[in-house]
């Protein structure tokens, strides 16, 4: 058994999607997590719940609403058409948007927890030592929240690799554009091509196991270090 060209394309696309999604998520999740860890407004609970929604909703529901919003008749779709852009559904860009929403809680929660665990004291100390807010963020908050960032990156990446429902609803099945691993496996099974489905599925099982193993060992190390 070997990887067919189509399978390889699906693997590369999946890794590309997971990488781009993780990068975008870090840019969005970090300020959001900071805000959640430090705000005192009553909106905090509502935003926390909103960010956590993808944990409980069926991915098809998310995919469906994203399709409606981003489609040619949706608010965002209309706006994009008005700007002379192509609508996002059934494109790689659309998949990135869907994956970012889908994996948001996996990125926000570890970082927010890490920021909360630091507390305000180290930041206050830094302020009395002439560090501006921006400076405090980079020189104190980020280094101290490193384990949270590590967890967020690993979980966001792995979770994106494993997603299926959102992709199917929003991306369809275009080779090289939106046909990621999970969809490819689905195709193989539909075509009763179990050998090919096995290759990809077993690969995902091993990948996921290794990720969780690394995560556990890393957080264990960190706990021992800080003890």
């Amino acid at each position, binding site marked *: 058994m070997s990887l067919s060209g189509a399978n390889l394309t699906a693997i590369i696309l999946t890794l590309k999607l997971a990488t781009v999604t993780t990068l975008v998520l870090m840019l969005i999740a970090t300020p959001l997590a900071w805000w959640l860890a430090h705000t005192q407004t009553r909106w905090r609970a509502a935003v926390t719940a909103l960010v956590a929604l993808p944990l409980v909703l069926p991915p098809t529901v998310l995919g469906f609403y994203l399709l409606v919003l981003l489609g040619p008749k949706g608010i965002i779709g209309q706006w994009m058409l008005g700007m002379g852009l192509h609508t996002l559904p059934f494109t790689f860009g659309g998949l990135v948007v869907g994956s970012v929403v889908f994996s948001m809680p996996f990125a926000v929660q570890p970082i927010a927890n890490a920021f909360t665990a630091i507390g305000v004291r180290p930041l206050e*100390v830094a*302020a*009395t030592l*002439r560090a501006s807010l921006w400076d405090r963020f980079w020189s104190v908050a980020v280094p101290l929240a490193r384990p949270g960032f590590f967890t967020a990156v690993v979980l966001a990446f792995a979770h994106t690799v494993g997603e299926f429902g959102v992709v199917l609803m929003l991306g369809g099945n275009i080779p090289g554009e939106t046909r990621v691993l999970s969809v490819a496996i689905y195709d193989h099974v539909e075509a009763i091509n179990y050998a090919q489905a096995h290759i990809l599925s077993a690969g995902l099982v091993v990948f996921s196991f290794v990720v969780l193993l690394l995560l556990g060992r890393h957080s264990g190390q960190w706990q021992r270090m800080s003890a």
Partner: protein
Amino acid sequence: MSTIAARFRSTLGSFELDAEFSVPAHGISALFGPSASGKTTLLRLIAGLARAPGSLTVAGEVWQDERRFVPTHRRALGYVFQEASLFPHLDVRGNLQYGWKRVPAAERRIAFDDVIDWLGLGALLAQSPQQLSGGQRQRVAIGRALLASPRLLLMDEPLSALDTTSRAEILPYLEQLHRQLELPIIYVSHALDEVARLADTLLLIEAGKIVHQGPLADGLTRLDLPLAHRDTAATVIDTTVVSHDPAFQLTHVARQRVAFELPGLHGAPGVPLRVRVAARDVSLALVAPQQTSILNLLPARVIELADDTPGQVLVRLALDDMVLLARITRKSARLLDLQPGTQVVAQVKSVAVA
């Protein structure tokens, strides 16, 4: 001009703060009061870590008024917290350099190596904060604050989280700090012995209000203030070591024309020494007794008297520019017919190093 003047008024939950004070911009001002009286809140307002309407001027520089609020990182201050609060991701050197690196070289008022030498931190530089003892950590925290070249040092009970040994390790540094650097310090404490040892100016705070401000000896002995009525009431006197008597193990100290002898050999001649005289160790006579075991017999004048516990009165005495406190029985006060202005001989049974 050279003062630290603050006024804050704010309601924080059920706590009402209405504090106004003005202290000299040199020496140690102790902010003393019971727990939950607003000491830390006031210190945080001075640092800009908390916000309340008011005004604050430090040695001519406005840090807050109706229109302006200078953020903490733009205030030239140092803050030593109750817990050392060292950055766990940096080693000792990294902690010490944190503020130092952020002060432009031209504005630095203190050399890095001087602080390391003075606080004895040389051997600790490569260690991580987790490896240090409580006293070492607080020493690093003090060094870190000093290296940020503050114009005002704020200390929030820096000794209260330490054990007795570590406290004894840090106290001498705080005393020297005060003498070696031209740096005003506001020192929050609820330990009177620390205040008596370190402070020059006393700010008494109660339920969010500054109830007294002035020179330390004044605040310790004013009969309308609570400190003089404590069981441990005492006054402090800043003296200079004159000579030693090795045969009898006594140190002679003096302030102006008044000389004291105290047990033990302390300091070298010429060195300043703050001594403490407890109210219960002072008795009064109208004429100097001829043969007595008491070495310190000092002519003094009664300023005022006040009832203390039932059966006892407190007498406040003037001795040149010094103040003494005597706790005597009501009966003795009646027998000696003590009135404001009466000339007496204060018999000081015990003088101790503060």
